[in-house]
């Protein structure tokens, strides 16, 4: 149920403007190789015909996002030519004139407007507190700050350089539409999102199960169990048409050109290895570390022969395939199975006892976390996929707020290695302090008087909640509990 807005939205505008000004001030900051990646894609999509997009290999940063993102870059390239035409030449590798930098940075700042709109929609969905007069203490305001001023998003997008703001905008908008009961729009947006960046496959199971259970099955029995007779084929067909047409639009041209295998091999490069060059703090990082420790121990205790061990070092900073020395090697299939096992309780939960849009959102967070922990070649930036949606739950429930604070703080800390240059060092410390200080004090204040609308305060009176604990890992504790019954 959408809550009414608190007063005017002038504070929202002020927040947006404030963070945008910081983004502008960061134009001159360090940018990573991702900058060159996107410049290269601008060049490829502008200068070459569609048939060559996924074959072009002049630069090592080949196109590995789905077609919609390629079209997005194509659209941007038409504006880019007014800034500096040289950046659109494919052969101009690592070209970074001031005009190029300005254009690219501005493109991120302006596409963030999608994110701003999505945040506005999410704030509308959040239930207001008992004291609507106090704007600064209302859940909508806190949520707006937690999302708009999110530290991770700021440094990954506006310093490191990526377009996550735009993509998360589409994602959060889809979530907001589900909260508002506009499920077809939400499904459409998610289909579009998958064709913009396929990493969101991490949370596709949540969407699938939720839509099947809560959208296609119109009514439940009085005890909440399935009532197959109420299965709406029309709704299923509508969903199917929407999703299929989006995918057809996206992959159609490449299907026609008979390039589908090439596109898929670009999208899913399994040769890249179990871990990224910078280890994401997930389960396999621990696994690798344990393997290394055991092999060192084994050599010391003369149980292993040094000559027989594989030579490739996992910490070498190179991205390649290698075998583990002591523990069994891990293949992509194994990571998939582990991921599915870790998220299946949550998926089962929203199938068996659906709890509306909030339950779905919680499941999204769990799917994101599960995939982060057990996925193949995970980037540490993927933690944002769990932190951002959790913000919405955090302003409504005390327990979620507690989990959010731990997850956000540790997740953001894990992003620190992304910015390793000296001039940016104080900036990342300051921004981290800002976000952490604000999140702790505002969430504490929000729940000090029990302001939140009595949600998620632990076990329901009927005592039918289950507590599941995820993996206790070095970087945080994750727990999920069965959400209470909510109206969709």
């Amino acid at each position: 149920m959408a809550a009414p807005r608190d007063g005017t939205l002038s504070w929202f505008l002020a927040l947006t403007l404030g963070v945008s000004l910081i983004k502008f001030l960061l134009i001159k900051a360090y940018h990573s190789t991702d900058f060159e990646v996107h410049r290269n894609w601008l060049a490829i999509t502008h200068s070459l015909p569609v048939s060559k997009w996924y074959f072009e290999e002049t630069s090592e940063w080949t196109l590995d996002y789905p077609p919609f993102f390629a079209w997005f870059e194509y659209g941007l390239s038409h504006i880019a030519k007014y800034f500096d035409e040289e950046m659109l030449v494919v052969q101009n590798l690592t070209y970074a004139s001031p005009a190029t930098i300005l254009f690219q940075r501005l493109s991120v700042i302006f596409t963030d407007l999608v994110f701003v709109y999505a945040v506005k929609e999410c704030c509308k969905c959040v239930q207001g507190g008992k004291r609507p007069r106090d704007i600064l203490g209302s859940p909508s305001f806190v949520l707006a700050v937690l999302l708009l001023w999110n530290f991770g998003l700021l440094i990954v997008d506006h310093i490191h350089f990526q377009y996550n703001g735009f993509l998360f905008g589409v994602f959060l908008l889809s979530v907001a539409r589900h909260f508002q009961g506009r499920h077809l729009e939400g499904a459409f947006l998610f289909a579009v999102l998958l064709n913009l960046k396929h990493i969101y496959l991490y949370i596709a199971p949540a969407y699938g199960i939720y839509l099947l259970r809560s959208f296609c099955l119109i009514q439940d029995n009085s005890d909440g169990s399935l009532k197959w007779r109420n299965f709406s084929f029309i709704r299923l067909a509508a969903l199917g048409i929407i999703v299929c047409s989006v995918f057809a639009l996206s992959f159609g041209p490449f299907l026609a050109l008979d390039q589908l295998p090439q596109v898929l091999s670009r999208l899913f490069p399994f040769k890249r290895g179990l871990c990224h060059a910078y280890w994401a703090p997930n389960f396999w990082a621990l696994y690798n570390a344990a393997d290394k420790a055991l092999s060192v121990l084994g050599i010391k205790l003369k149980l292993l022969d040094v000559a027989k061990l594989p030579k490739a070092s996992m910490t070498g900073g190179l991205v390649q395939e290698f075998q583990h020395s002591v523990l069994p090697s891990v293949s992509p299939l194994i990571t998939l199975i582990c991921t599915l096992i870790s998220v299946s309780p949550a998926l089962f939960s929203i199938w068996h006892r659906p709890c509306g849009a909030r339950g779905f959102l919680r499941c999204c967070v769990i799917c994101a976390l599960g995939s982060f922990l057990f996925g193949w070649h995970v980037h540490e930036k993927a933690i944002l996929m769990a932190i951002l949606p959790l913000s919405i739950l955090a302003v409504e429930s005390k327990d979620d707020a507690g989990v959010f604070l731990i997850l956000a703080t540790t997740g953001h800390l894990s992003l620190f290695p992304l910015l390793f240059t000296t001039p940016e060092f104080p900036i990342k410390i300051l921004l981290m302090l800002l976000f952490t200080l604000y999140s702790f004090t505002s969430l504490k204040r929000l729940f000090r008087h029990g302001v939140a609308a009595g949600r998620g305060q632990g076990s329901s009176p009927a005592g039918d909640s289950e507590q599941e604990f995820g993996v206790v890992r070095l970087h945080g504790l994750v727990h999920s509990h069965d959400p209470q019954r909510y109206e969709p």
Partner: protein
Amino acid sequence: METWAVASICVLLGLTARWTVSLNSYSGASKAPMFGDYEAQRHWQEVTFNLPVRQWYFNTTDNDLKYWGLDYPPLTAFHSLLCAHIANLINPDWIELHKSRGYESPAHKFFMRATVIFADVLIYIPAVVVYCLYLAQGSSKTKSSALLCILLYPGLILIDNGHFQYNSVSLGLALWGVLGLGCGHDLLGSLAFTLALSYKQMELYHALPFFWYLLGKCGKLGLTGKGLILLVKISLTVLVSFALCWLPFLFDPQQTLQVIHRLFPMARGLFEDKVANVWCSLNILVKIKTLLSVDTQIYLSFGTTLLAVLPSSIKLLMKPTFWQFRLALMNSSLAFFLFSFQVHEKSILLLMSVILSAPPFVLLSMLPLLLKDNLFQPYIITSLGFIVFSLYLFSAVDRSSVDDLRLGPCCRLTGTNFLWFSFSTVVKLQFALSVLTMAGLSFMSAALEPPAKLPDLFPVLVSACACVHFLGFLLYFNLVQLTESPRSDKKKIN
């Protein structure tokens, strides 16, 4: 939210703005052979570290005064010495005598930027926090908003963290002086201001109000009893602290004279470059710089400055309240800026320290300087942010009734009635006009080429417009100070 949390967030935002502006270029970057203020500061570290004290202010074989010779008082020199010692620990190449001229590297830039921000954090920011939270009036929301706006003031950030200077040290110390006086700690306040004056001689702009306020206060306490004791104590504090700062230069009269000669370069003329004061603007119409001899110029500026400062000083002496003191600070700095000798654009910063609502023209007047340093982008962003946020947080344009602007007594005295416009409309119009002019002139200065016959057209226009505005403000603040009635002492604008 608790005050400490809000204050911390404001401080963190202020520091973030400073560090991000620090990413940009600095004064004289890569501009051999003279470079700019950044190189001047580095050179002073070199000079103070490698040469004995008696050579610092003199022209010797090792110390060429023409290449950024020291022209600030001794405390700046000691500060440079301290920085030089730290630099020596990190990389002695940065301050090697003669060889390090024009030294530029990313690591060195980070070090220099860090010294500025360290000084900010140590001196200026705590002063602002204490001022806003304890001395300013209003709700906690007003105080926090004031804190945020002062910390985000673009002028100081762009000059200190962009162009490169250490104004925050002298401004911070002067602010501690104001705080001391405001809380009744006259001795500590005097000490702080003496230190400020020993750091940069520009603080003389603020010196007269300090003097008259303390003298008036002693007078009110009775010049034969408690007043005299206080006067003696203050005088001793001031003299001893001056002596301590200037100690190495007091043993030889030649040293003292040379330092003073360096601090007040009379031979350089009434003004240099384009600055938003009366003499530069007058020079457009009447070439006074060339018509009058240097001596006449000195007397002229001396006389007019004293005249401009006289009404405010007398009023302060007669009525030494803290509110009068703050007004007098504003008037004195405006008067000095507009009329005194050898004023630099950066001195405009001295106008903003006490009163919050710094007009857009203060920022605009620094534009030519910032354009030279490639700081146009941060200038636009920070100015925009500051104007928008001060407008949003204070609804400044709404507080423009006659009462709010404290012109009530003035209007009653002179019997003026703004018949055909309502007063608030006039103020709103004026504010809108100044913002528009600022935007227009900024755009023209950055984007357009001046005509060949008038190559300095834009800096001159900017300075002239700003000068007119400042004269207006001088008039306004003088009116407010002079016509203040005894009963309105309790209300204070933040």
